[in-house]
């Protein structure tokens, strides 16, 4: 059965688009048919991170308004045949996105995909609420930093109030994806720790993505980080997160963590 995921955060620049691309590619690599959908109308970037910016002909708005068929707008990834992209419009604005139109597109995607991953725009306005509206599960992307944690808390409130699931009295499944984490700075007390963020937001942890040059390198090249260098630390972390999304039990590790001498001696309790 198809599963609709929204990747959201409230705050901009925390890694929603990077995470959408990386999780989408990791799920597609499992052989499951996956589509990543850009909801950031007017400021699309998922096409660029996926390396498909020169192949966009039709977009989400064209489909919503009936100017193009869904199949015409879907772009199949050149590296992975199970991975598809539905780009946002760059020239129109968010007002062209209607609740009915989005519902129609999501319902149609549900028929032919296993995973539908919606990349939400930043903010709490129309674009963000429409991106989360039909989701079964939310991935809340958060940086270990005060403004990001505050905005994530606000988004969690919206997920529990403004989604179809919430309105039907069902529970919206929410997962925390902690990105740009630096275990060494956290250990020194210069950055919020995983446990701090988990305690404040109190939603289950999907994964910890380490701060890494590999993320920028992959977006420079136009490839999801999980496809660009499958062995790098963020790729491993995203792949584990994707496995957890798919329901597998994967032990939580903090990739790239250098364990101190004392920690090695006395062991470290799992995060």
């Amino acid at each position, binding site marked *: 059965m198809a599963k609709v995921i929204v990747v959201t955060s409230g705050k901009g620049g925390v890694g929603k688009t990077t995470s959408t691309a990386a999780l989408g590619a990791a799920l597609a690599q499992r052989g499951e048919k996956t589509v990543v959908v850009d909801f950031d109308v007017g400021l699309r970037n998922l096409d660029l991170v996926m390396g498909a910016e020169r192949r966009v002909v039709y977009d989400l708005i064209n489909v919503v308004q009936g100017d193009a068929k869904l199949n015409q707008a879907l772009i199949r990834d050149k590296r992975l045949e199970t991975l598809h992209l539905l780009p946002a419009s760059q020239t129109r604005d968010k007002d062209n996105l209607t609740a009915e139109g989005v519902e129609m597109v999501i319902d149609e995607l549900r028929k032919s995909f296993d995973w539908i991953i919606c990349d939400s725009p930043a903010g709490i306005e129309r674009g963000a609420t429409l991106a989360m509206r039909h989701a079964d599960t939310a991935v809340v992307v958060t940086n270990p*930093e*005060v403004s990001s*944690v*505050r905005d994530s*808390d*606000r988004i969690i*409130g919206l997920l529990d*109030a403004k989604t179809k699931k919430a309105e039907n009295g069902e529970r919206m499944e929410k997962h925390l994806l902690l990105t740009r984490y630096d275990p060494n700075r*956290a250990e*020194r*007390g*210069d*950055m*919020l*720790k995983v446990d*701090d963020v988990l305690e*404040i937001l109190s939603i289950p942890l999907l994964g910890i993505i380490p701060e890494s040059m590999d993320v920028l390198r992959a977006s420079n090249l136009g490839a999801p980080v999980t496809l660009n260098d499958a062995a790098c630390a963020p790729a491993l972390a995203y792949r584990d997160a994707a496995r957890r999304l798919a329901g597998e039990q994967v032990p939580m590790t903090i990739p790239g963590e250098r364990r101190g001498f004392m920690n090695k001696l006395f062991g470290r309790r799992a995060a």
Partner: protein
Amino acid sequence: MSLFSFLNKRSSAPTARERLQVLLAHERATVGHADLVGLLREEILAVIAKHVQLDGDKVSVTMERGEHVSTLEVDIEIPVTASMRAA
């Protein structure tokens, strides 16, 4: 001096954590409902304005949101002429 200054430097993450906990406790309580302290401030000022002409410059309202209690401090200067008029 600079060699040992790192010993005095408190790590910042615990402060971030405490600030967030206090802030979010308030924000979660006020989302969807009116902010009680804000409402009190409006109504208290309205009641006083019924009897005394308020000079905006002579009214100071401060609010402090603490972990367990919030305090609202309303400091209003009432000129002698105003109280004579009321009497």
